[in-house]
Protein backbone atom coordinates (compact mmCIF):
# COMPACT_ATOMS: atom_id res chain seq x y z
CA UNK A 1 0.00 0.00 0.00
CA UNK A 2 1.47 3.32 -1.06
CA UNK A 3 0.63 6.77 0.25
CA UNK A 4 0.73 10.34 -0.98
CA UNK A 5 1.34 13.29 1.32
CA UNK A 6 0.73 16.93 0.48
CA UNK A 7 2.76 19.03 2.91
CA UNK A 8 1.27 22.47 2.51
CA UNK A 9 1.70 25.72 4.40
CA UNK A 10 -1.90 25.58 5.59
CA UNK A 11 -2.87 21.90 5.38
CA UNK A 12 -1.18 18.54 5.54
CA UNK A 13 -3.17 15.96 3.60
CA UNK A 14 -2.50 12.26 3.31
CA UNK A 15 -4.06 10.15 0.53
CA UNK A 16 -4.20 6.38 0.58
CA UNK A 17 -6.15 3.73 -1.26
CA UNK A 18 -8.73 1.68 0.59
CA UNK A 19 -10.36 -0.88 -1.73
CA UNK A 20 -12.37 1.16 -4.25
CA UNK A 21 -11.95 4.44 -2.40
CA UNK A 22 -9.28 6.99 -1.73
CA UNK A 23 -9.14 8.12 1.87
CA UNK A 24 -7.88 11.65 2.46
CA UNK A 25 -6.80 12.51 6.00
CA UNK A 26 -6.41 16.21 6.50
CA UNK A 27 -4.97 18.32 9.30
CA UNK A 28 -4.24 22.02 9.65
CA UNK A 29 -0.55 22.83 9.72
CA UNK A 30 -0.83 25.15 12.73
CA UNK A 31 -0.36 25.29 16.48
CA UNK A 32 -1.28 27.55 19.34
CA UNK A 33 0.11 27.89 22.85
CA UNK A 34 -2.00 27.97 26.02
CA UNK A 35 -1.11 28.19 29.69
CA UNK A 36 -1.13 24.82 31.34
CA UNK A 37 -3.56 23.97 34.14
CA UNK A 38 -5.38 20.85 35.24
CA UNK A 39 -8.70 22.40 34.26
CA UNK A 40 -7.48 23.21 30.76
CA UNK A 41 -6.09 19.72 30.29
CA UNK A 42 -9.33 18.11 31.47
CA UNK A 43 -11.33 20.34 29.15
CA UNK A 44 -9.06 19.49 26.20
CA UNK A 45 -9.21 15.76 26.97
CA UNK A 46 -13.02 15.87 27.10
CA UNK A 47 -13.12 17.78 23.81
CA UNK A 48 -10.73 15.21 22.25
CA UNK A 49 -8.37 17.97 21.16
CA UNK A 50 -4.94 17.20 19.74
CA UNK A 51 -2.32 18.79 21.98
CA UNK A 52 1.13 18.38 23.42
CA UNK A 53 2.05 19.06 26.99
CA UNK A 54 5.21 21.01 27.65
CA UNK A 55 7.00 21.95 30.84
CA UNK A 56 5.93 25.55 30.39
CA UNK A 57 2.50 25.14 28.81
CA UNK A 58 0.28 23.41 26.28
CA UNK A 59 0.42 23.54 22.48
CA UNK A 60 -2.74 22.82 20.54
CA UNK A 61 -2.09 21.30 17.16
CA UNK A 62 -3.89 21.18 13.84
CA UNK A 63 -7.47 22.20 13.19
CA UNK A 64 -8.15 22.78 16.91
CA UNK A 65 -5.36 25.34 17.12
CA UNK A 66 -7.03 27.24 14.34
CA UNK A 67 -10.46 27.06 15.95
CA UNK A 68 -9.20 28.12 19.37
CA UNK A 69 -7.24 30.99 17.82
CA UNK A 70 -10.44 32.30 16.27
CA UNK A 71 -12.33 31.91 19.57
CA UNK A 72 -9.64 33.57 21.70
CA UNK A 73 -8.85 36.13 18.97
CA UNK A 74 -5.24 35.04 19.05
CA UNK A 75 -3.00 34.30 16.13
CA UNK A 76 -2.40 30.64 15.34
CA UNK A 77 1.28 30.00 14.76
CA UNK A 78 2.38 28.26 11.60
CA UNK A 79 5.31 25.83 11.36
CA UNK A 80 5.61 26.65 7.68
CA UNK A 81 5.71 29.92 5.81
CA UNK A 82 5.93 30.52 2.05
CA UNK A 83 5.88 26.78 1.39
CA UNK A 84 8.88 25.87 3.55
CA UNK A 85 9.64 25.29 7.23
CA UNK A 86 9.43 28.63 8.98
CA UNK A 87 12.89 29.82 10.04
CA UNK A 88 11.21 32.05 12.64
CA UNK A 89 9.51 29.19 14.48
CA UNK A 90 11.85 27.24 16.76
CA UNK A 91 9.17 24.62 17.36
CA UNK A 92 8.42 24.14 13.68
CA UNK A 93 10.13 20.78 13.13
CA UNK A 94 8.83 18.90 16.24
CA UNK A 95 5.32 20.28 15.67
CA UNK A 96 5.36 19.23 12.04
CA UNK A 97 6.70 15.84 13.00
CA UNK A 98 3.70 15.31 15.26
CA UNK A 99 1.15 16.57 12.74
CA UNK A 100 2.68 14.57 9.89
CA UNK A 101 2.85 11.49 12.10
CA UNK A 102 -0.79 11.91 13.11
CA UNK A 103 -1.98 12.34 9.51
CA UNK A 104 0.26 9.74 7.94
CA UNK A 105 0.07 7.01 10.56
CA UNK A 106 2.44 4.09 10.76
CA UNK A 107 3.41 2.29 7.55
CA UNK A 108 1.54 -0.97 6.98
CA UNK A 109 4.79 -2.63 5.99
CA UNK A 110 8.47 -1.81 6.06
CA UNK A 111 9.54 0.72 3.41
CA UNK A 112 6.04 1.50 2.20
CA UNK A 113 6.29 3.86 -0.78
CA UNK A 114 5.45 7.46 0.08
CA UNK A 115 5.48 10.47 -2.23
CA UNK A 116 5.59 13.88 -0.57
CA UNK A 117 4.97 17.17 -2.31
CA UNK A 118 7.45 19.99 -2.03
CA UNK A 119 7.58 23.39 -3.70
CA UNK A 120 9.83 24.10 -6.67
CA UNK A 121 12.52 26.79 -6.41
CA UNK A 122 10.88 30.22 -6.23
CA UNK A 123 11.67 32.77 -8.92
CA UNK A 124 10.59 35.95 -7.18
CA UNK A 125 12.43 35.63 -3.90
CA UNK A 126 15.90 34.74 -2.71
CA UNK A 127 14.85 31.54 -1.03
CA UNK A 128 15.97 27.94 -1.39
CA UNK A 129 13.75 24.93 -0.81
CA UNK A 130 16.51 22.30 -0.66
CA UNK A 131 16.78 22.19 3.12
CA UNK A 132 13.01 21.98 3.50
CA UNK A 133 12.87 19.08 1.02
CA UNK A 134 15.60 17.22 2.83
CA UNK A 135 14.04 17.78 6.25
CA UNK A 136 10.65 16.51 5.13
CA UNK A 137 12.23 13.55 3.39
CA UNK A 138 14.21 12.57 6.47
CA UNK A 139 11.22 13.15 8.75
CA UNK A 140 9.10 10.64 6.86
CA UNK A 141 11.98 8.24 6.26
CA UNK A 142 12.38 8.20 10.03
CA UNK A 143 8.84 6.79 10.15
CA UNK A 144 10.07 3.82 8.05
CA UNK A 145 8.62 5.03 4.75
CA UNK A 146 10.42 4.78 1.41
CA UNK A 147 10.08 8.48 0.72
CA UNK A 148 10.26 10.16 -2.68
CA UNK A 149 9.85 13.84 -3.39
CA UNK A 150 7.69 15.37 -6.14
CA UNK A 151 6.99 18.96 -7.19
CA UNK A 152 3.52 20.20 -6.30
CA UNK A 153 2.83 21.27 -9.89
CA UNK A 154 3.77 17.83 -11.20
CA UNK A 155 1.48 16.21 -8.63
CA UNK A 156 -1.41 18.27 -10.05
CA UNK A 157 -0.49 17.06 -13.55
CA UNK A 158 -0.47 13.42 -12.43
CA UNK A 159 -3.79 13.86 -10.72
CA UNK A 160 -5.80 15.80 -13.23
CA UNK A 161 -5.02 15.17 -16.89
CA UNK A 162 -4.08 11.59 -17.56
CA UNK A 163 -6.21 11.78 -20.73
CA UNK A 164 -3.61 14.09 -22.25
CA UNK A 165 -0.70 11.72 -21.64
CA UNK A 166 0.36 13.95 -18.77
CA UNK A 167 1.30 16.73 -21.20
CA UNK A 168 0.01 19.88 -19.60
CA UNK A 169 0.54 22.82 -17.28
CA UNK A 170 -0.25 22.12 -13.66
CA UNK A 171 -0.79 25.01 -11.27
CA UNK A 172 -1.19 24.62 -7.53
CA UNK A 173 -2.30 27.75 -5.71
CA UNK A 174 -1.44 27.04 -2.11
CA UNK A 175 -1.45 29.18 0.98
CA UNK A 176 2.24 30.02 1.01
CA UNK A 177 3.20 29.59 -2.61
CA UNK A 178 1.92 29.06 -6.10
CA UNK A 179 3.62 26.21 -7.92
CA UNK A 180 3.69 25.86 -11.69
CA UNK A 181 4.96 22.91 -13.73
CA UNK A 182 4.91 22.31 -17.46
CA UNK A 183 5.27 18.65 -18.31
CA UNK A 184 5.57 16.74 -21.56
CA UNK A 185 4.67 13.04 -21.35
CA UNK A 186 4.86 13.16 -17.55
CA UNK A 187 8.37 14.64 -17.66
CA UNK A 188 8.67 18.15 -16.20
CA UNK A 189 10.18 20.63 -18.67
CA UNK A 190 9.80 23.64 -16.43
CA UNK A 191 9.01 23.92 -12.75
CA UNK A 192 8.97 27.00 -10.59
CA UNK A 193 7.16 28.54 -7.68
CA UNK A 194 6.07 32.02 -6.73
CA UNK A 195 6.25 33.16 -3.13
CA UNK A 196 2.67 34.39 -3.22
CA UNK A 197 -0.47 32.44 -2.49
CA UNK A 198 -3.52 32.50 -0.26
CA UNK A 199 -1.60 34.03 2.66
CA UNK A 200 -0.53 36.94 0.48
CA UNK A 201 -4.15 37.54 -0.48
CA UNK A 202 -5.14 37.45 3.21
CA UNK A 203 -2.39 39.89 4.19
CA UNK A 204 -3.25 42.35 1.44
CA UNK A 205 -6.98 42.14 2.14
CA UNK A 206 -6.36 42.54 5.90
CA UNK A 207 -4.22 45.62 5.29
CA UNK A 208 -6.80 47.12 2.96
CA UNK A 209 -9.81 46.53 5.20
CA UNK A 210 -8.18 46.82 8.63
CA UNK A 211 -9.50 43.39 9.62
CA UNK A 212 -7.38 40.82 11.50
CA UNK A 213 -5.73 38.33 9.18
CA UNK A 214 -7.42 35.37 10.88
CA UNK A 215 -10.81 36.93 10.19
CA UNK A 216 -9.91 37.45 6.54
CA UNK A 217 -8.72 33.84 6.26
CA UNK A 218 -11.96 32.57 7.81
CA UNK A 219 -14.00 34.76 5.43
CA UNK A 220 -11.97 33.54 2.47
CA UNK A 221 -12.67 29.92 3.31
CA UNK A 222 -16.40 30.58 3.69
CA UNK A 223 -16.74 32.91 0.72
CA UNK A 224 -19.51 31.77 -1.58
CA UNK A 225 -18.31 33.38 -4.78
CA UNK A 226 -15.67 35.78 -6.03
CA UNK A 227 -17.57 38.57 -7.68
CA UNK A 228 -17.63 42.26 -8.35
CA UNK A 229 -20.99 42.98 -6.72
CA UNK A 230 -19.86 43.47 -3.14
CA UNK A 231 -20.53 45.76 -0.22
CA UNK A 232 -18.34 48.82 0.22
CA UNK A 233 -15.40 48.12 2.57
CA UNK A 234 -16.18 44.41 2.73
CA UNK A 235 -13.55 41.70 2.97
CA UNK A 236 -15.12 39.95 -0.04
CA UNK A 237 -14.40 42.93 -2.29
CA UNK A 238 -10.77 43.09 -1.20
CA UNK A 239 -10.42 39.34 -1.67
CA UNK A 240 -11.74 39.55 -5.24
CA UNK A 241 -9.27 42.33 -6.04
CA UNK A 242 -6.27 40.50 -4.64
CA UNK A 243 -7.25 37.16 -6.14
CA UNK A 244 -7.25 38.92 -9.49
CA UNK A 245 -3.86 40.48 -8.72
CA UNK A 246 -2.40 37.09 -7.76
CA UNK A 247 -3.71 35.44 -10.93
CA UNK A 248 -2.22 38.19 -13.11
CA UNK A 249 1.09 37.89 -11.26
CA UNK A 250 1.19 34.11 -11.76
CA UNK A 251 0.36 34.36 -15.47
CA UNK A 252 2.98 37.09 -16.07
CA UNK A 253 5.64 34.96 -14.41
CA UNK A 254 4.52 31.88 -16.32
CA UNK A 255 4.90 33.74 -19.62
CA UNK A 256 8.32 35.03 -18.55
CA UNK A 257 9.52 31.52 -17.73
CA UNK A 258 8.08 30.12 -20.97
CA UNK A 259 10.37 32.51 -22.85
CA UNK A 260 13.36 30.70 -21.35
CA UNK A 261 12.47 27.27 -22.76
CA UNK A 262 11.45 25.81 -26.10
CA UNK A 263 8.28 23.88 -25.37
CA UNK A 264 7.04 21.25 -27.85
CA UNK A 265 4.58 22.45 -30.44
CA UNK A 266 1.43 21.05 -28.85
CA UNK A 267 -1.61 22.60 -27.21
CA UNK A 268 -1.27 22.38 -23.45
CA UNK A 269 -4.28 21.88 -21.22
CA UNK A 270 -4.13 23.64 -17.86
CA UNK A 271 -5.24 22.28 -14.50
CA UNK A 272 -5.55 24.64 -11.56
CA UNK A 273 -5.67 23.16 -8.08
CA UNK A 274 -4.60 23.94 -4.52
CA UNK A 275 -6.24 25.05 -1.30
CA UNK A 276 -6.51 28.66 -2.40
CA UNK A 277 -8.24 27.73 -5.65
CA UNK A 278 -11.43 26.73 -3.85
CA UNK A 279 -13.66 29.81 -3.95
CA UNK A 280 -16.32 29.71 -6.58
CA UNK A 281 -15.56 32.05 -9.44
CA UNK A 282 -11.80 31.60 -9.04
CA UNK A 283 -11.54 29.14 -11.91
CA UNK A 284 -13.59 31.35 -14.26
CA UNK A 285 -11.42 34.33 -13.39
CA UNK A 286 -8.21 32.34 -13.97
CA UNK A 287 -9.47 31.03 -17.30
CA UNK A 288 -10.43 34.53 -18.43
CA UNK A 289 -7.02 35.96 -17.54
CA UNK A 290 -5.21 33.01 -19.16
CA UNK A 291 -7.11 33.45 -22.43
CA UNK A 292 -6.39 37.19 -22.41
CA UNK A 293 -2.70 36.73 -21.67
CA UNK A 294 -1.44 35.47 -25.08
CA UNK A 295 0.81 32.85 -23.60
CA UNK A 296 3.86 31.61 -25.49
CA UNK A 297 2.26 28.15 -25.79
CA UNK A 298 -1.06 27.13 -27.28
CA UNK A 299 -3.70 26.41 -24.71
CA UNK A 300 -6.13 23.52 -24.94
CA UNK A 301 -8.88 23.09 -22.35
CA UNK A 302 -8.59 24.60 -18.92
CA UNK A 303 -9.70 21.99 -16.44
CA UNK A 304 -11.84 22.84 -13.48
CA UNK A 305 -10.56 20.54 -10.76
CA UNK A 306 -13.31 18.95 -8.72
CA UNK A 307 -11.55 18.92 -5.35
CA UNK A 308 -8.73 21.45 -5.70
CA UNK A 309 -7.52 21.01 -2.14
CA UNK A 310 -7.13 17.23 -2.52
CA UNK A 311 -5.56 17.25 -5.97
CA UNK A 312 -1.90 17.43 -4.89
CA UNK A 313 -2.30 14.58 -2.37
CA UNK A 314 -4.05 12.51 -5.04
CA UNK A 315 -1.21 13.19 -7.50
CA UNK A 316 1.30 12.09 -4.87
CA UNK A 317 -0.68 8.89 -4.33
CA UNK A 318 -0.72 8.19 -8.09
CA UNK A 319 3.04 8.68 -8.23
CA UNK A 320 3.51 6.43 -5.20
CA UNK A 321 1.36 3.63 -6.58
CA UNK A 322 3.10 3.85 -9.95
CA UNK A 323 6.42 3.53 -8.18
CA UNK A 324 5.12 0.61 -6.17
CA UNK A 325 3.85 -1.10 -9.33
CA UNK A 326 7.19 -0.55 -11.03
CA UNK A 327 9.03 -2.02 -8.05
CA UNK A 328 6.73 -5.03 -8.08
CA UNK A 329 7.36 -5.64 -11.78
CA UNK A 330 11.10 -5.34 -11.34
CA UNK A 331 10.95 -7.81 -8.48
CA UNK A 332 8.98 -10.26 -10.65
CA UNK A 333 11.52 -9.93 -13.44
CA UNK A 334 14.39 -10.71 -11.10
CA UNK A 335 12.55 -13.66 -9.58
CA UNK A 336 11.59 -15.39 -12.87
CA UNK A 337 14.06 -18.21 -13.59
CA UNK A 338 16.09 -17.70 -16.75
CA UNK A 339 16.05 -21.30 -18.11
CA UNK A 340 15.07 -24.59 -16.50
CA UNK A 341 18.16 -26.64 -15.71
CA UNK A 342 18.35 -30.19 -17.00
CA UNK A 343 17.76 -32.89 -14.46
CA UNK A 344 20.71 -35.04 -13.75
CA UNK A 345 20.36 -38.70 -14.64
CA UNK A 346 20.13 -40.88 -11.64
Amino acid at each position, binding site marked *: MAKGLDIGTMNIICAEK*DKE*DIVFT*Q*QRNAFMELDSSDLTKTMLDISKVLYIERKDGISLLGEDAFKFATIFEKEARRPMTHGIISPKEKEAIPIMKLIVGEVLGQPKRQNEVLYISTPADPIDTDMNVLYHKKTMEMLTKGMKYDTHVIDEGLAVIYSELADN*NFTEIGISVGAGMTNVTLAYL*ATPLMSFSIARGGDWIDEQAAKSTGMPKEHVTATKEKISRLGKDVKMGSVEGALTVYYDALITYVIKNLNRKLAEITPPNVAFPVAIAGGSAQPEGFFELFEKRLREANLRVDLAKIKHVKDPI*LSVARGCL*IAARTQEE*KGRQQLKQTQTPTQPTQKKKK
Partner: protein
Amino acid sequence: MHDDDFVDEESGKNKLFSRGASIYYLGSMIFIVGIALIILGSALILFFRLSYTSDLQEILLTIIPIALGTILILLGINLMMKQSRKGYAILSLSVIAVAASMILFIRIYENNWYYPQAYYVFGLYVSGFLLLLGNTFAGSILYIIKTNKPVYSPIEDKEPVHLYTDDEIQRDIEEATRKSAEAAVAELQFNDVQELPSDIIGVHISETPKNVTRVKDKITEVRSLGQTLSPGMTEKWGSVGIDKASDALAKALEPQKTQKKGFFQRIKEKYFSNKPKKETKKETKVKSKEKKTEKKR
Protein backbone atom coordinates in the same frame (compact mmCIF):
# COMPACT_ATOMS: atom_id res chain seq x y z
CA MET B 1 42.00 60.90 -47.24
CA HIS B 2 41.83 57.26 -46.38
CA ASP B 3 41.22 56.35 -50.00
CA ASP B 4 44.36 58.24 -51.03
CA ASP B 5 46.37 56.45 -48.43
CA PHE B 6 45.05 53.17 -49.65
CA VAL B 7 45.98 53.90 -53.28
CA ASP B 8 49.46 54.98 -52.24
CA GLU B 9 49.85 51.88 -50.17
CA GLU B 10 48.71 49.70 -53.04
CA SER B 11 51.04 51.38 -55.52
CA GLY B 12 53.87 51.17 -52.98
CA LYS B 13 53.24 47.46 -52.60
CA ASN B 14 53.33 47.01 -56.37
CA LYS B 15 56.65 48.87 -56.62
CA LEU B 16 58.14 46.80 -53.92
CA PHE B 17 56.88 43.65 -55.59
CA SER B 18 58.39 44.50 -59.04
CA ARG B 19 61.70 45.52 -57.48
CA GLY B 20 61.70 42.36 -55.36
CA ALA B 21 61.08 40.20 -58.42
CA SER B 22 63.88 41.78 -60.43
CA ILE B 23 66.27 41.39 -57.55
CA TYR B 24 65.15 37.80 -57.21
CA TYR B 25 65.97 37.12 -60.89
CA LEU B 26 69.28 38.93 -60.57
CA GLY B 27 70.12 36.90 -57.46
CA SER B 28 69.34 33.63 -59.18
CA MET B 29 71.50 34.62 -62.17
CA ILE B 30 74.39 35.48 -59.89
CA PHE B 31 73.87 32.18 -58.05
CA ILE B 32 74.09 30.23 -61.34
CA VAL B 33 77.19 32.19 -62.43
CA GLY B 34 78.78 31.38 -59.05
CA ILE B 35 78.13 27.67 -59.51
CA ALA B 36 79.48 27.84 -63.05
CA LEU B 37 82.66 29.53 -61.82
CA ILE B 38 83.19 26.85 -59.16
CA ILE B 39 82.72 24.16 -61.78
CA LEU B 40 85.17 26.01 -63.98
CA GLY B 41 87.71 26.31 -61.13
CA SER B 42 87.36 22.63 -60.29
CA ALA B 43 87.80 21.73 -63.95
CA LEU B 44 90.93 23.88 -64.15
CA ILE B 45 92.35 22.12 -61.07
CA LEU B 46 91.99 18.86 -62.91
CA PHE B 47 93.17 20.34 -66.19
CA PHE B 48 96.33 21.94 -64.77
CA ARG B 49 96.92 19.04 -62.36
CA LEU B 50 97.49 21.67 -59.73
CA SER B 51 100.19 21.09 -57.10
CA TYR B 52 102.64 22.98 -54.87
CA THR B 53 105.07 23.24 -57.76
CA SER B 54 102.53 24.40 -60.36
CA ASP B 55 102.95 27.57 -62.39
CA LEU B 56 101.78 30.81 -60.63
CA GLN B 57 99.53 31.74 -63.57
CA GLU B 58 97.82 28.37 -63.36
CA ILE B 59 97.25 28.76 -59.62
CA LEU B 60 95.85 32.26 -60.15
CA LEU B 61 93.53 31.13 -62.91
CA THR B 62 92.23 28.32 -60.74
CA ILE B 63 91.81 30.12 -57.39
CA ILE B 64 90.09 33.25 -58.77
CA PRO B 65 87.06 31.44 -60.27
CA ILE B 66 86.62 29.30 -57.14
CA ALA B 67 86.94 32.26 -54.76
CA LEU B 68 84.69 34.44 -56.90
CA GLY B 69 82.21 31.62 -57.45
CA THR B 70 81.86 30.99 -53.70
CA ILE B 71 81.17 34.66 -53.07
CA LEU B 72 78.71 34.88 -56.00
CA ILE B 73 76.74 31.85 -54.72
CA LEU B 74 76.32 33.49 -51.31
CA LEU B 75 75.50 36.84 -52.91
CA GLY B 76 72.91 35.22 -55.17
CA ILE B 77 71.22 33.50 -52.23
CA ASN B 78 71.13 36.79 -50.32
CA LEU B 79 69.61 38.64 -53.25
CA MET B 80 66.95 35.97 -53.68
CA MET B 81 65.87 36.53 -50.08
CA LYS B 82 64.02 39.62 -48.89
CA GLN B 83 66.49 42.07 -47.49
CA SER B 84 66.13 45.02 -45.20
CA ARG B 85 68.16 48.19 -45.69
CA LYS B 86 70.71 46.89 -43.26
CA GLY B 87 70.89 43.68 -45.27
CA TYR B 88 71.63 45.55 -48.48
CA ALA B 89 74.29 47.57 -46.66
CA ILE B 90 75.93 44.36 -45.43
CA LEU B 91 75.82 42.92 -48.95
CA SER B 92 77.42 46.04 -50.41
CA LEU B 93 80.13 46.05 -47.74
CA SER B 94 80.94 42.38 -48.22
CA VAL B 95 81.05 42.79 -52.03
CA ILE B 96 83.46 45.74 -51.65
CA ALA B 97 85.65 43.74 -49.23
CA VAL B 98 85.75 40.70 -51.49
CA ALA B 99 86.37 42.83 -54.64
CA ALA B 100 89.25 44.65 -52.92
CA SER B 101 90.77 41.37 -51.75
CA MET B 102 90.51 39.93 -55.26
CA ILE B 103 92.13 42.97 -56.90
CA LEU B 104 94.90 42.97 -54.34
CA PHE B 105 95.36 39.22 -54.78
CA ILE B 106 95.71 39.54 -58.55
CA ARG B 107 98.19 42.41 -58.16
CA ILE B 108 100.47 41.03 -55.53
CA TYR B 109 100.29 37.29 -55.98
CA GLU B 110 102.96 36.96 -58.61
CA ASN B 111 105.59 39.31 -57.14
CA ASN B 112 104.72 40.46 -53.64
CA TRP B 113 102.93 37.59 -51.96
CA TYR B 114 104.60 38.11 -48.59
CA TYR B 115 103.62 38.81 -44.96
CA PRO B 116 101.62 41.02 -44.15
CA GLN B 117 100.12 41.79 -47.63
CA ALA B 118 98.94 38.21 -48.09
CA TYR B 119 97.20 38.39 -44.66
CA TYR B 120 95.41 41.65 -45.64
CA VAL B 121 94.09 39.95 -48.79
CA PHE B 122 93.06 36.89 -46.84
CA GLY B 123 91.48 39.02 -44.05
CA LEU B 124 89.44 41.10 -46.50
CA TYR B 125 88.18 38.02 -48.31
CA VAL B 126 87.27 36.14 -45.14
CA SER B 127 85.48 39.16 -43.63
CA GLY B 128 83.47 39.59 -46.87
CA PHE B 129 82.72 35.86 -46.94
CA LEU B 130 81.62 35.77 -43.29
CA LEU B 131 79.43 38.86 -43.70
CA LEU B 132 77.62 37.22 -46.60
CA LEU B 133 77.30 33.93 -44.75
CA GLY B 134 75.99 35.66 -41.60
CA ASN B 135 73.46 37.64 -43.60
CA THR B 136 72.30 34.45 -45.32
CA PHE B 137 71.86 32.78 -41.95
CA ALA B 138 69.92 35.74 -40.50
CA GLY B 139 67.73 35.93 -43.62
CA SER B 140 66.97 32.20 -43.42
CA ILE B 141 65.98 32.41 -39.74
CA LEU B 142 63.72 35.39 -40.40
CA TYR B 143 62.12 33.52 -43.29
CA ILE B 144 61.45 30.46 -41.10
CA ILE B 145 59.90 32.63 -38.41
CA LYS B 146 57.63 34.34 -40.94
CA THR B 147 56.53 31.11 -42.62
CA ASN B 148 55.61 29.58 -39.20
CA LYS B 149 53.52 32.63 -38.30
CA PRO B 150 50.32 30.73 -37.22
CA VAL B 151 52.27 29.17 -34.35
CA TYR B 152 52.88 32.58 -32.91
CA SER B 153 49.51 34.08 -33.88
CA PRO B 154 47.31 35.32 -31.05
CA ILE B 155 44.56 33.01 -29.72
CA GLU B 156 41.71 35.24 -30.90
CA ASP B 157 42.64 34.51 -34.54
CA LYS B 158 41.97 30.80 -34.01
CA GLU B 159 38.66 30.81 -32.19
CA PRO B 160 36.36 33.67 -31.30
CA VAL B 161 36.43 34.47 -27.61
CA HIS B 162 32.95 34.50 -26.01
CA LEU B 163 32.56 37.44 -23.72
CA TYR B 164 30.20 36.53 -20.89
CA THR B 165 27.60 39.03 -19.80
CA ASP B 166 27.02 39.81 -16.14
CA ASP B 167 23.72 37.92 -16.30
CA GLU B 168 25.40 34.80 -17.69
CA ILE B 169 28.11 34.93 -15.05
CA GLN B 170 25.48 35.37 -12.35
CA ARG B 171 23.48 32.46 -13.76
CA ASP B 172 26.58 30.26 -13.86
CA ILE B 173 27.40 31.12 -10.26
CA GLU B 174 23.83 30.40 -9.17
CA GLU B 175 23.84 27.08 -11.03
CA ALA B 176 27.14 26.05 -9.46
CA THR B 177 25.89 27.10 -6.01
CA ARG B 178 22.66 25.17 -6.51
CA LYS B 179 24.51 22.01 -7.56
CA SER B 180 26.88 22.33 -4.63
CA ALA B 181 23.97 22.84 -2.20
CA GLU B 182 22.10 19.86 -3.70
CA ALA B 183 25.17 17.65 -3.28
CA ALA B 184 25.63 18.82 0.31
CA VAL B 185 21.95 18.28 1.14
CA ALA B 186 22.00 14.79 -0.40
CA GLU B 187 24.79 13.80 1.98
CA LEU B 188 23.07 15.29 5.00
CA GLN B 189 21.87 12.84 7.67
CA PHE B 190 19.74 13.82 10.64
CA ASN B 191 20.51 11.66 13.63
CA ASP B 192 17.68 12.90 15.84
CA VAL B 193 14.71 12.22 13.58
CA GLN B 194 13.00 9.93 16.06
CA GLU B 195 13.50 12.18 19.06
CA LEU B 196 11.16 14.84 20.39
CA PRO B 197 12.42 17.90 22.27
CA SER B 198 13.08 17.20 25.94
CA ASP B 199 10.56 19.81 27.15
CA ILE B 200 7.60 17.85 25.67
CA ILE B 201 6.13 15.86 28.54
CA GLY B 202 3.27 14.18 26.73
CA VAL B 203 1.49 13.97 23.41
CA HIS B 204 -2.29 13.56 23.40
CA ILE B 205 -3.28 12.25 20.00
CA SER B 206 -5.03 8.94 20.61
CA GLU B 207 -8.69 9.89 20.54
CA THR B 208 -8.62 12.96 18.33
CA PRO B 209 -11.21 12.83 15.58
CA LYS B 210 -9.53 13.25 12.20
CA ASN B 211 -10.80 15.19 9.26
CA VAL B 212 -11.24 12.28 6.86
CA THR B 213 -12.72 12.44 3.35
CA ARG B 214 -13.54 9.25 1.50
CA VAL B 215 -13.90 9.46 -2.28
CA LYS B 216 -14.86 6.65 -4.68
CA ASP B 217 -11.90 6.53 -7.00
CA LYS B 218 -10.16 3.69 -8.82
CA ILE B 219 -7.21 5.92 -9.82
CA THR B 220 -6.73 4.40 -13.24
CA GLU B 221 -4.13 7.11 -13.80
CA VAL B 222 -1.59 4.79 -12.14
CA ARG B 223 -1.51 2.51 -15.18
CA SER B 224 -1.52 5.41 -17.65
CA LEU B 225 1.34 7.04 -15.78
CA GLY B 226 3.28 3.78 -15.66
CA GLN B 227 2.85 3.37 -19.41
CA THR B 228 3.80 6.98 -20.13
CA LEU B 229 6.91 6.85 -17.98
CA SER B 230 7.97 3.38 -19.23
CA PRO B 231 6.52 2.93 -22.71
CA GLY B 232 8.08 -0.53 -23.10
CA MET B 233 6.19 -1.93 -20.13
CA THR B 234 3.61 -4.59 -21.06
CA GLU B 235 0.31 -4.80 -19.30
CA LYS B 236 -0.55 -8.15 -17.85
CA TRP B 237 -4.27 -7.40 -17.61
CA GLY B 238 -4.34 -5.30 -20.77
CA SER B 239 -7.49 -3.24 -20.22
CA VAL B 240 -5.98 -0.11 -21.69
CA GLY B 241 -3.12 -1.27 -23.80
CA ILE B 242 -2.83 -3.44 -26.84
CA ASP B 243 -2.60 -6.65 -24.84
CA LYS B 244 -6.32 -6.80 -24.28
CA ALA B 245 -7.07 -6.34 -27.94
CA SER B 246 -4.60 -9.06 -28.91
CA ASP B 247 -6.04 -11.42 -26.26
CA ALA B 248 -9.56 -10.85 -27.56
CA LEU B 249 -8.40 -11.41 -31.13
CA ALA B 250 -6.62 -14.62 -30.15
CA LYS B 251 -9.78 -15.92 -28.45
CA ALA B 252 -11.91 -15.04 -31.46
CA LEU B 253 -9.56 -16.86 -33.81
CA GLU B 254 -9.29 -19.94 -31.58
CA PRO B 255 -10.67 -23.12 -33.36
CA GLN B 256 -13.96 -24.42 -32.05
CA LYS B 257 -12.67 -27.96 -31.37
CA THR B 258 -10.59 -26.74 -28.51
CA GLN B 259 -13.63 -25.35 -26.79
CA LYS B 260 -14.85 -27.61 -24.02
CA LYS B 261 -18.45 -28.79 -24.51
CA GLY B 262 -20.85 -29.27 -21.69
CA PHE B 263 -22.80 -32.49 -21.06
CA PHE B 264 -26.12 -31.17 -22.40
CA GLN B 265 -24.40 -29.69 -25.43
CA ARG B 266 -22.96 -33.10 -26.34
CA ILE B 267 -26.36 -34.87 -25.98
CA LYS B 268 -27.99 -32.15 -28.05
CA GLU B 269 -25.43 -32.52 -30.82
CA LYS B 270 -25.62 -36.31 -30.75
CA TYR B 271 -29.38 -36.83 -30.89
CA PHE B 272 -31.02 -33.59 -31.98
CA SER B 273 -28.62 -31.86 -34.38
CA ASN B 274 -29.04 -32.01 -38.21
CA LYS B 275 -25.33 -32.56 -38.75
CA PRO B 276 -24.31 -35.95 -40.25
CA LYS B 277 -23.34 -38.38 -37.56
CA LYS B 278 -19.79 -39.55 -37.25
CA GLU B 279 -19.11 -43.00 -38.75
CA THR B 280 -18.40 -45.85 -36.37
CA LYS B 281 -15.33 -48.08 -36.81
CA LYS B 282 -17.45 -50.99 -38.14
CA GLU B 283 -19.10 -48.79 -40.80
CA THR B 284 -15.73 -47.50 -42.01
CA LYS B 285 -14.37 -51.08 -42.29
CA VAL B 286 -17.39 -52.19 -44.37
CA LYS B 287 -17.00 -49.16 -46.66
CA SER B 288 -13.30 -49.83 -47.25
CA LYS B 289 -14.02 -53.51 -48.12
CA GLU B 290 -16.63 -52.41 -50.67
CA LYS B 291 -14.13 -50.04 -52.28
CA LYS B 292 -11.49 -52.80 -52.56
CA THR B 293 -13.89 -55.25 -54.27
CA GLU B 294 -14.90 -52.51 -56.77
CA LYS B 295 -11.23 -51.94 -57.66
CA LYS B 296 -10.66 -55.71 -58.25
CA ARG B 297 -13.57 -55.81 -60.65
